[in-house]
């Protein structure tokens, strides 16, 4: 048997070991000199890459993941899915006796030492295959009764807060839109507005990184249009009666809902904030690949209806301005606060809240290792949904 055949057999044997639920690393597997002839995965096709193998190993270690034959099927899906996009091509595993000098092809890397970005590529490819199947799931029907006589509201500004407040108001029987609607422009600390805007743009299909969004805003000295609160409020006041325009600046969704409720004359209830930087960073990787798989329209449907459930459960806290951008954020926040104070519309809450404050310890960008850890849970949930659908 040649050295390369021996290598291929050993890789397939490790793949089979992982497929059975092992979390042993390649190095540990080689150290134990496992018998290559037993349990070798069948297959003449290309050998799975280091990133796919490492992804299976990490999925195997999850307490909330599938087990037994169910896990083996998930492992097969991962091992049979090429990593999409740019990155290292077919990373081989380190193999004793392999010559390092003059080696041709991507140099070997112990899978457990691969950069998180490479394992995330493999995760993205697998996730896209699972999400593509969601495109055929009919969207849930809105069962709320239509009550055209109820007071109407329209929410603009902070996208995530608007989603949360909208849900709470609709649950209380109010209606969205209408000819006599009351306009609310929702705001909060600028860093949070930027994080919400980033999340919304990525859900809409952008592949934008958090740092790039700040770089563009700072270079152009302009906050993204969807969260330019003074501009939005001024436009509405100009277009409609200023009395129907309310700017609400609050530190969180619950306080925002309370202030909006006061204006509309409804009691506010509890509503939890939602921070989703890890899901957003994962989705920006998924977006172009999912679009290629099912087209843009189907991607939008999947992201709108299935993604929130699959990607939920994030407990990552807020995102701060990337290093070096806080100064611009403070200056911009101060400018916005002054403009809001001088507008022809009602302002509820303190406009000065828009100005970011120094928050030691807050993360300045999503860390790829954290995104990967989150992606493992997302993959598990997407797999469960797929299994439930097929059963």
């Amino acid at each position: 048997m040649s050295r390369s055949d021996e290598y291929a057999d050993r890789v397939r044997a490790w793949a089979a070991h992982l497929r059975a639920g092992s979390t042993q690393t390649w190095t540990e597997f080689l150290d134990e000199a496992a018998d290559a002839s037993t349990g070798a995965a069948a297959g003449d096709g290309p050998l799975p890459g280091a990133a796919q193998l490492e992804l299976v190993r990490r999925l195997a270690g999850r307490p909330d993941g599938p087990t037994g034959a169910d896990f083996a099927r998930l492992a097969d899906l991962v091992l049979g899915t090429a990593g999409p996009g740019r990155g290292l091509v077919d990373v081989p595993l380190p193999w004793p006796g392999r010559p390092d000098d003059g080696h041709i092809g991507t140099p070997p890397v112990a899978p457990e030492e691969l950069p998180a970005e490479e394992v995330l590529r493999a995760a993205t490819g697998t996730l896209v295959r699972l999400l593509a199947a969601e495109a055929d799931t009919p969207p849930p029907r809105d069962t709320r009764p239509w009550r055209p006589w109820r007071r109407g509201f329209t929410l603009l500004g902070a996208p995530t807060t608007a989603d949360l407040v909208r849900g709470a108001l609709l649950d209380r029987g109010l209606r969205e839109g209408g000819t006599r609607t009351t306009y609310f422009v929702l705001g909060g600390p600028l860093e949070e507005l930027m994080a919400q805007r980033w999340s919304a743009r990525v859900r809409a299909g952008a592949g934008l990184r958090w740092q790039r969004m700040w770089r563009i805003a700072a270079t152009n000295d302009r906050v993204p249009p969807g969260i330019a609160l003074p501009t939005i409020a001024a436009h509405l006041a100009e277009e409609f009666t200023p009395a129907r325009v309310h700017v609400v600046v609050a530190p969180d969704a619950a306080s925002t809902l309370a202030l909006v409720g006061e204006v509309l004359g409804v009691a506010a209830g509890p509503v939890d904030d939602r921070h989703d930087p890890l899901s957003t960073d994962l989705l920006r990787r998924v977006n172009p690949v999912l679009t290629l798989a099912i087209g843009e329209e189907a991607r939008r449907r999947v992201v709108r209806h299935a993604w929130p459930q699959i990607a939920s459960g994030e407990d990552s806290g807020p995102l701060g301005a990337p290093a070096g951008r806080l100064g611009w954020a403070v200056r911009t926040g101060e400018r916005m606060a002054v403009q809001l104070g001088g507008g022809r519309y009602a302002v509820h809450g303190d406009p000065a809240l828009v100005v970011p404050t120094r928050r030691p310890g807050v993360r300045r960008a999503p860390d790829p290792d954290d995104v990967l850890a989150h992606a493992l849970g997302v993959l598990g949930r997407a797999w469960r949904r797929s299994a439930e659908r097929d059963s």
Partner: protein
Amino acid sequence: MARRVIVHVGAPKTGTSFVQDLLFGARDRLTEQGICYPADRFDAHFLAALDLMQLSWGGLEREAVGAWDRLAAQVRACPDTAIVSHEILATASRAQVARALASLDDGGTEIHVVLSARDLVRQIPAEWQENVKHRRTTSYADFLAHLQDPSRQQGVAAWFWGVQEVPDILDRWGSTLPRERVHLVTVPPAGAPRDLLWQRFSRVLGLDPAEFPLDDVRTNPSLGVAEVAVVRRLNEQVNEVVPNHHYRAIVREALVHQSLSADRRSARLSVPPDVWEWAAQLSRQWVTELALRGYDVVGDLDDLLPAEALPWVDPDAPAIEEFADAAVRALTALTVEAARLRDREVELQRDIEELIEKLDRAHSTPIYKAKERLVARAGTSTVAARGLAVYRRLRGRNSRST
């Protein structure tokens, strides 16, 4: 069912655009000879490659949904020989190659893989220049350091080696094929007759080179040291303020292709002496390895060994006079382009004014004015609103125009 499929997988900067332009322009003539080049647009195979490798490309991937499967179906439907060609296919992983070859094979199809290759010492500066033309701002020194880093994890190193490491590309694409169906076309050294490369391509594609004149085929001239330095500095300034579609039209097309490339005045890009030594050593290893593999070499493996080093001029620190000259030419080109666009704007403005005049004339009839009064009254009068509703029902259209 296609009897023979030729898959040309790269590499970039080896005359691939020239081959693709020629094949696309000669589709009808090729069909007469029993050869399909299935493409309804010039970049059809590029979109198919994006789809196969699930690559994003500045939003263009949105046009690539299902493109590979469509191309494969067209190839399978070809009666005799089909050609697929795109240089980014070079970086496909083994799994992607397996999928591609399986989708092109209709059972018994003879698949040939073609890779065109040029010596590494010419490829390195050519790839950096290509990167700069695609908005990158990495200095040449960093680019060279990234390529030499054995981990390949920095900058664009993974991409560079994915599309330029000749023995690995041929191994990924050719390991399941008989060796005589794996063809390596070498790009002749600088100064060789212009049509020699085309003769080599023709041989492997099964064409008579005399039947396909090269007169109308576009060339892709390179930038000089000072010109590329100007574009890189420009990228640093415009990257966050000019969106991709404008960059493509204004910088890449109007500035680089139509102006600076067409009028190169500074030294050609090269590599520093230590990089030349390193690349030459690597090239010798490749040539030794390739000679052992037994592929069909069209040309000469020695073409992949670097020629004598060109004088080294550092594009990270170009001569100030040359840089200034290139910058002024760039400014001139962009001013001319701005003037052209301004003329177009004026022209469009005139068109709009004419259309508004026509619209005003159409709206000045007594009937139209009466309708307008009715619509206006409907906003305040219930009777008028009912009358308008009845009118619209009778008219049978749900238009709110009048």
